[in-house]
């Protein structure tokens, strides 16, 4: 299986111990202890309002939390290079800005009104090729569809040359086939670029097929481990709070993990 090849010593990219997040009177996360294995694909699953996004924001250092989050294997201690693809980017869609403008604004120092540097432009076009949307380079960023924006944001995250890539519902709003394609694309890029991937997902079938490690979250960690160990009826009903009529995920997970 791929995880054995990627991570022979079972090292961790992120270790969360006793992480607590409180927002006003609401306890969003309660003593979360979890690990994100190095170089693999980890999925966080859980119902709405379970604290999935808060957990990723805590890892990204964007919300205050109690407890510790450590990154034992990053190049700069405590400060890994992140790539982040948010679920739905809130921005002013009327802003005159091409996809190239936006991607350059993150990596080029020389103001873009003086033009594009050839070196950065090449790098961006190569990255857009990698996420299969080179044709979007000169389109207006605000006029793109949701799925196209996700791809541009993925390209932007990859331009950071991330050690840890975090995706919030990358397959939300994409049809099933689109979701599959997106996950296959991510798996392929991850293997060449060797980063740790952490994604939130609602789509259990995609998780079963494409993640090596699953964290089931509902304010606390209900279970974590390999998909075929975790995605059982017992764990899922404890996570989502009801019995789910899902066809045998146990076997599905095993079958697909063979081919991934």
């Amino acid at each position, binding site marked *: 299986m791929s995880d054995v090849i990627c991570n022979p010593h079972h090292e961790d990219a992120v270790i969360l111990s006793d992480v607590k997040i409180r927002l006003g009177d609401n306890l969003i996360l309660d003593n979360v202890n979890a690990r994100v294995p190095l170089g693999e694909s980890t999925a966080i699953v859980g119902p709405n309002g379970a604290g999935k996004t808060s957990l990723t924001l805590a890892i990204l250092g964007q919300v205050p939390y109690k407890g510790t989050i450590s990154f034992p294997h990053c190049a700069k201690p405590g400060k890994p290079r992140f790539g982040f693809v*948010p679920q739905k980017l809130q921005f*002013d869609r009327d802003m005159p*800005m091409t996809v190239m403008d936006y991607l350059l*604004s993150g990596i080029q*120092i020389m103001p*873009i009104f003086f033009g594009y540097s050839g070196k950065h432009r090449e790098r961006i076009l190569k990255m857009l090729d990698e996420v299969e949307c080179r044709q979007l380079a000169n389109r207006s960023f605000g006029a793109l569809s949701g799925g196209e924006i996700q791809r541009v944001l993925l390209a932007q995250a990859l331009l*950071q040359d991330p050690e840890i890539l975090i995706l919030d519902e990358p397959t939300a709003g994409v049809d099933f086939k689109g979701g599959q394609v997106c996950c296959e694309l991510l798996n392929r890029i991850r293997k060449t670029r060797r980063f740790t991937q952490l994604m939130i997902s609602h789509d259990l079938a995609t998780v079963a097929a494409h993640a090596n490690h699953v964290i089931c979250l509902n304010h606390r960690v209900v279970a974590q481990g390999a998909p075929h160990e975790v995605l059982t009826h017992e764990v899922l009903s404890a996570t989502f709070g009801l019995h789910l009529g899902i066809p045998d995920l146990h076997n599905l997970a095993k079958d697909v993990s063979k081919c991934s």
Partner: protein
Amino acid sequence: MISSIIMSLSEFVSSFLPFECMDAMFMKRALLGLLLIAPLAAVTGIQVVNSRMAFFSDAIGHSAFAGVALGLIFSVSPNFSMPVLALFVGFLIMYLRRGSRLSSDTVIGVIFSAVVAFGLAVVSRNRSVAKDMQMFLFGDILTIGDAEIASLIVLAVAFILFQFFGYNRMLSISVNPQLASVHRIPVAAYQYIFAGLLSLVVIYSVRAVGVILVTALLVVPAATARNFSKNSGSMFWISLIISIISVVAGLLISAQKWANTPAGATIVLCASVFFVISLIYVRCQPGKTSDTEK
């Protein structure tokens, strides 16, 4: 020394405008002042429009009253107390906006009212200053002095440095500050430096067009440029050009005998004409929506 440099600079910029009205020294100095303010206002305006901070700049403009009031209380020149208070208000709003869960409009609204009330209360007690308030309401570029032009030059240098290293970063931040921060842009530092520069640009623009029209001087060229452009680079240049043409045309028209209008209002009217043209341009372009909101 400084005044002779400013005098020769004024002569130089005026030499491009061979009009009778430009013979007077105060017109030459006004032109130099406006040519310093216009690019600063135009570029700040782009970032104000992109980050939806028009109300923010309006509040800083209105702090001019309170700046004058502070000057009276501590008997210092308003040329000193106005920028200092504007900086304070700018940083305060930015701090509250970043840290509070109140909507930023609410935060700004409260501070806006407080500084205006304070300014009016103190200034109204003093009859002689109350008469001068017209200058702050409508601007008075013709009386700009050497000291103000010298400080504008210093501000312009700081501003150009910031924009050279920060223009792209500010663009990233205006799309989404959280995403920018995750991708290792020091968002807080950029936002505070921008708030400081914005405050100073606004308070010097009050000199040109007055408290009432100051936001227009920043926002109208940028909004016009948004309608004309498809990418960030062209938005920058179009906004800059429209701003410079508007101040020069506004100053010249205001000095004509047939017009005899206040310079500030005429400048904003010129910019507005460009905006109307941009709306017509958008109407003729299928598939592009107009940018009529602030």
